[in-house]
């Protein structure tokens, strides 16, 4: 099988690109759930919103790609602040069931709105010329955009980790995740922390959705279709941690791609069974500290 090694390289490459986008989208969910203990099933809706902002900005406003990306982040983050202040914050003390129901309701609303405003067809992503085409690496050709995805996601993730591990804000987040009551009693304003963190997490989801619009198509049923994968990344990675979901996302990205290549008839089935087994073995996730 002289084609074997190059196919492994190919799978690794595409799998890593997919996995990193999954991570950028899902990391916000991990932090939100770990920090605020809030089960936000509607997280996918923020990613979808980011995708719509990007595609609309490019095709309707003629905005350049490098400007549309940060726009996706900003718009989604801003909207999430409003949602958090008006709606989410009322349910912080409520039980899990209420949070699940509330966010399911949000998903329904987001899906219906997207359908009414944008129609059912998927949004075409008009990439700038310098991001199209192929590049040669190690004897195989790879799409340039996927390479860009890996690099861009890497940069975002590095910035995020730096922010959480080296800044004061990051320290406050980590403290509040570990022990909220204690953090409050030493004077950390957890309300504002929640809002900022939620905005950041949702903004990242929007950015991830926008970046990944090429490989995860933007259409109204997005939040339903990909909910399972986002939740798996967080559950398998471990709530509240940053590294855990990263490993989980890469694992999922690569194995999903590998399955499609070698055993296409089974694809997603393998991921779900693996998830069940991993969660049974480690209920707190691979790197989580608590459930």
């Amino acid at each position: 099988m002289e084609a074997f090694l190059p196919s492994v390289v190919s799978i690794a490459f595409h799998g890593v690109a997919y996995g990193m986008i999954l991570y950028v989208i899902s990391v916000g969910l991990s932090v939100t759930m770990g920090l605020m203990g809030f089960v936000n099933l509607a997280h996918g809706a923020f990613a979808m919103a980011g995708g719509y902002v990007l595609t609309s900005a490019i095709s309707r406003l003629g905005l350049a790609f490098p400007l549309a990306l940060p726009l996706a982040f900003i718009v989604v983050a801003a909207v999430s602040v409003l949602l958090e202040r008006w709606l989410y914050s009322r349910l912080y003390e409520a039980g899990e069931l209420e949070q699940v129901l509330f966010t399911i309701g949000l998903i329904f609303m987001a899906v219906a709105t997207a359908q009414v405003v944008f129609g059912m067809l998927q949004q075409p992503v008009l990439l700038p010329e310098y991001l199209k085409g192929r590049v040669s690496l190690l004897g195989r050709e790879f799409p340039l955009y996927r390479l860009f995805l890996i690099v861009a996601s890497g940069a975002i993730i590095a910035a995020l980790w730096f922010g959480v591990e080296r800044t004061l804000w990051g320290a406050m987040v980590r403290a509040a995740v570990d022990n909220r009551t204690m953090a409050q009693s030493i004077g950390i304003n957890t309300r504002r922390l929640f809002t900022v963190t939620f905005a950041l997490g949702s903004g990242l989801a929007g950015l991830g959705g926008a970046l990944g619009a090429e490989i995860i198509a933007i259409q109204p049923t997005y939040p339903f279709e990909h909910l399972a994968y986002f939740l798996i990344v967080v559950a398998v990675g471990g709530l509240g941690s940053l590294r855990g979901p990263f490993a989980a996302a890469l694992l999922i990205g690569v194995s999903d791609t590998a399955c499609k290549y070698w055993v296409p008839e089974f694809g997603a089935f393998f991921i779900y069974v693996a998830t069940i087994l991993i969660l049974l073995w480690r209920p707190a996730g691979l790197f989580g500290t608590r459930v």
Partner: protein
Amino acid sequence: MRSRSFVTTLILAVVLLGAAPLAAQTVKVGFLTTYSGPGAAQGDQLDKGAKLYLKLNGGKLPRGVKIDLIARDDTGPNPDVAKRIVQELIVRDKVQLLTGFVWTPNAAAIAPLTAEAKVPYISMNAAGVNIVNLSPYMARVSFTLWQSTYPLGQWAAKKFKRAYVAVSDFAPGHEAQEAFTKGFTDGGGEIIDAVRIPLANPDFVPYMQRVKDSKPDVLFAFNPAGKQATAMMKAYSDLGLEKAGIKYIGPGDITTDEELQGMGDAALGVITAHHYSAFADRPANKTFVAAYKKAYGEKLNPGFMAVGAWDAMDLVFHVIREQKGKIDPNRTMELIKGYKNPNSPRGPIAIDPDTRDIIQNEYLREVRKVGGQLANVEIETLATQIKDPWKEFNKGK
């Protein structure tokens, strides 16, 4: 005075007697399509085609006969929803004819109802080969995948030796695979490998990688129109399969006219076989497309589903006209079996009296840029007045 009131009464009586035959005979036609959920884009095509026909031809019914098109939403390929809705249409709304249906599973599910209640059904789209065999009251105006794909396979065998088949894993995908495989191998070609891609799939790149590694001459593809078809073509071009000499072909479903513009340059050069292209230049089509654009917007193109709806409505009107609004199920089926229409936007069509399925032309098309837009340009007629090949091969089964 007595004579005046007598005359008045006489006049009134005459008017009333004359009005009696003018009492509206309303024919209720149930129309099931998809307005919500992921399939709404396709369902919308049926809706646009049917309503356009109704708008332009509503006055062409016999005097006193009206048509009431009762539209319902089946929310997608949900056979149980379809069954429930059709049951309601028959029992509550008392429809006399049934049409519409994007999805084959929905049509299959309601077949027993049409037989039990004797309600003639004319499929505007549902293309599964076996549907019309499920009930003596079912007919189809749209197409079958065998009609387009079998001739495509035969054509491809003349130009290519080795083919790779990549279809989405659902019944139409399997049908397309079977039809192409038979056509290609009957013509002397070799299918080197085939893959069925799960429907709920976000990323086609690994599959295209596998295709590239197998080095075929041609890739036969079939995915649901829209998101999936575009994604696979993008993956195909992203990975450089075109440069590697692998041609991309498939049934016209993958480059359907209403979605084509959104597919971008990835679709250029794709060769398809289908019964309809919005850019065909026969006069009936030019009129149809102009009317469509006038009603729905310059930027929109009608797709094959809109044409299916349009032609089905023509058949419905024919049936109503011939029976002057008094619908008898068996007479309706006789009329359907004898139906011919030389002026459909897709060319001449007819209903096969043996199978109640559609007879039409199939054209070979290539996606080219015409006047700045992407278009399925018809380059040759693959098959003239072809009946459904699957039924030909499976006669007596």
